[in-house]
């Protein structure tokens, strides 16, 4: 196909997708395939947040808890009426850690994020972005595919092309134009999906915009090419593990379990679909108040609370399944207790000066003006993908590899230092004394610091990871 035909095809596809959302479910009777809607034999139970469970509800909210919440609501209504006062400031922290009453979440979240301010500063912007999105967004295909998957067990999103599904599609399309550096990145459907459970379309759009570009949350750096903020926060996460839970870190490394494998959703979508939704909302409440630190502290808290159970799992799959699936279904602790521990963790990390990996460097913040339309290039209009990794992506990839390399090296060093046969080892290099009679095969050389050797002795081949100093020693020892 020539370029023109490809362009025409891409724009046809975009048009077709947009049309379906514009018409919505009611006008698509007979045009939605049965498989597009999830099968729930019947509405078994819908919980108070709107999620439909395919079985009996695991736990009903206890009546006394509902009573407490009713009492709290009264206080909150008063407080919301006097938001910008010193009294509110003083009470806010304590009250938010106790949990925002669900019925008042919408107002409170909007106030915490200052949605109204940005909305009034930008009249008509959302509609403009949406219109432009319809003409130009190159992310429509991925957005469509993700709207079709996000929160399908929630009553708002259950039916294909339902009102909220259409709203979710619109918000993401409009945002993909608003922030041309990010466009759309998988994960954002989770953020916008939660916001839309509480807000209308335009408010959700601005709330998403604030989560990405306000320095308190700075999620922009998570979703741009190469995910620089993810790398930075993961490094910090590893540091915390090394300091406070070295045995657990060792346990993870032993099974080659990189934090990326279990924590991506912690960082990208603030624990959505990784902890039960009621707890997730509580963490969001606090995140919206206190910002980035909360993610770091919650990540630490989850592992701290479940360390014992995880240490018993001797397989990567089992550990990942526990952290990703089991904890989502049943966290094992009451929400209030988790939040109590979260607050304690924040304090503990603060004292150790590990509560915050520092403010975002410039490359994690929007470089281009937000809300200014940039026409996509031909390649992305057609939907062509890059042939090679960009420099930033190469960096990220190298980083990912390096993380494993480091972990493996640490593990190896630990093994050598803990070795029972330490007397058999040549202390200067950590290789068995009879190495001189062995064959050393070098496999790969890393530009950073380590080599891998297979040391073939009479008995079994053993792989060694050695740093450069050791290598030169071995070389110098040669006759």
């Amino acid at each position: 196909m020539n370029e023109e035909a490809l362009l025409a095809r891409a724009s046809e596809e975009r048009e077709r997708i947009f049309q379906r959302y514009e018409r919505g479910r009611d006008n698509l009777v007979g045009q939605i395939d049965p498989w597009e809607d999830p099968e729930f034999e019947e509405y078994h139970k819908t919980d108070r947040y709107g999620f439909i469970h395919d079985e009996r509800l695991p736990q009903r909210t206890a009546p006394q808890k509902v009573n407490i919440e009713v009492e709290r609501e009264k206080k909150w209504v008063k407080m919301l009426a006097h938001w910008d006062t010193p009294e509110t400031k003083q009470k806010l922290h304590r009250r938010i850690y106790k949990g925002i009453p669900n019925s008042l979440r919408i107002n409170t979240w909007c106030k915490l994020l200052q949605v109204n301010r940005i909305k009034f500063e930008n009249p008509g912007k959302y509609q403009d972005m949406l219109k432009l999105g319809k003409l130009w967004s190159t992310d429509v295909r991925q957005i469509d595919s993700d709207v079709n998957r996000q929160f399908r067990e929630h009553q708002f999103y259950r039916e294909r092309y339902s009102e909220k599904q259409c709203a979710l599609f619109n918000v993401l399309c409009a945002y993909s134009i608003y922030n041309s550096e990010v466009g759309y990145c998988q994960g954002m459907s989770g953020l916008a999906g939660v916001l839309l459970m509480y807000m209308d379309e335009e408010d959700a759009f601005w709330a998403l915009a604030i989560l990405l570009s306000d320095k308190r949350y700075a999620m922009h750096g998570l979703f741009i090419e190469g995910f620089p903020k993810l790398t930075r926060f993961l490094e910090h996460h590893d540091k915390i593990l090394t300091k406070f839970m070295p045995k657990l870190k060792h346990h993870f490394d032993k099974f080659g379990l990189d934090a990326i494998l279990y924590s991506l959703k912690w960082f990208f979508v603030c624990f959505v679909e990784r902890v039960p939704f009621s707890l997730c909302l509580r963490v969001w409440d606090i995140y919206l108040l206190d910002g980035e630190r909360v993610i770091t502290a919650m990540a630490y808290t989850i592992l701290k609370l479940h360390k014992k159970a995880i240490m018993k799992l001797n397989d990567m799959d089992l550990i990942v399944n526990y952290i990703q699936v089991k904890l989502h279904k049943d966290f094992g602790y009451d929400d209030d207790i988790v939040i109590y521990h979260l607050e304690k963790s924040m304090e503990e990390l603060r004292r150790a000066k590990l509560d915050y990996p520092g403010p975002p460097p410039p490359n994690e913040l929007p470089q281009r003006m937000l809300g200014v339309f940039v026409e996509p290039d031909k390649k992305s209009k057609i939907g062509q993908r890059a042939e090679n990794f960009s420099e930033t992506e190469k960096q990220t990839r190298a980083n990912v590899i390096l993380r494993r390399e480091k972990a493996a090296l640490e593990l190896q060093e630990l093994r050598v230092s803990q070795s029972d046969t330490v007397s058999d080892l040549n202390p200067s290099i950590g290789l068995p004394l009879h190495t001189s009679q062995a064959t050393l095969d070098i496999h790969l050389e890393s530009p950073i610091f380590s080599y891998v050797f297979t040391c073939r002795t009479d008995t079994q081949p053993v792989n060694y990871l050695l740093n450069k100093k050791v290598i030169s020693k071995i070389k110098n020892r040669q006759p």
Partner: protein
Amino acid sequence: MTTAPGGTNNFKVVLLGEGCVGKTSLLLRYIEDKFNDKHLTTLQATFLNKRLNIKGKRINLSIWDTAGQEKFHALGPIYYRNSNGAILVYDITDEDSFGKVKNWVKELKKMLGSDIVLIIAGNKVDLEHERTVPLEEAESYANMVGAKHYYTSAKLNQGVEELFLDLTREMLEKYEQNSQTEVNRTSQVLVVDDETPVQSSCCSGTKSN
């Protein structure tokens, strides 16, 4: 690959490919014989298990499904390291997604050599009338790189079972071959490196003495 005490062989398989080509659908079809029912988002790679029996051997597959959006490909090494097999999925109506498969093949060959069994899957054959990736091209490419090629439709449940079964057979064969030639290979610490070519010259002097 690990062997559990009960004599079960565990194989790790990773699903790779461009966004929207149907990786998750293939997996759900295979594991639960459902199409699109669960509507899983795959921002975070998740895995599902399948137990099967081949030649009287008990096998446990853990199949890792990855995020397809291009931005996430930089995280690839985390997912495919220690994999015994990779299924590279493309959409037969999207030539670009086939181009991405080629990139994955290159990367996997470079990083894992022949240690990994590669399968290429042309998905969505239910949309045969919209095909843009020529049949012969896909098959001859697969042949050239030593990968088996399958046509699948997660929607119509075509070719899915066969694909996984053949992949498992191949992994088992490879495992058995390896364990014969290297009976006593034990602990493995693998360090991989991106651009620098293997430099064996620097230690040629130490190779034997």
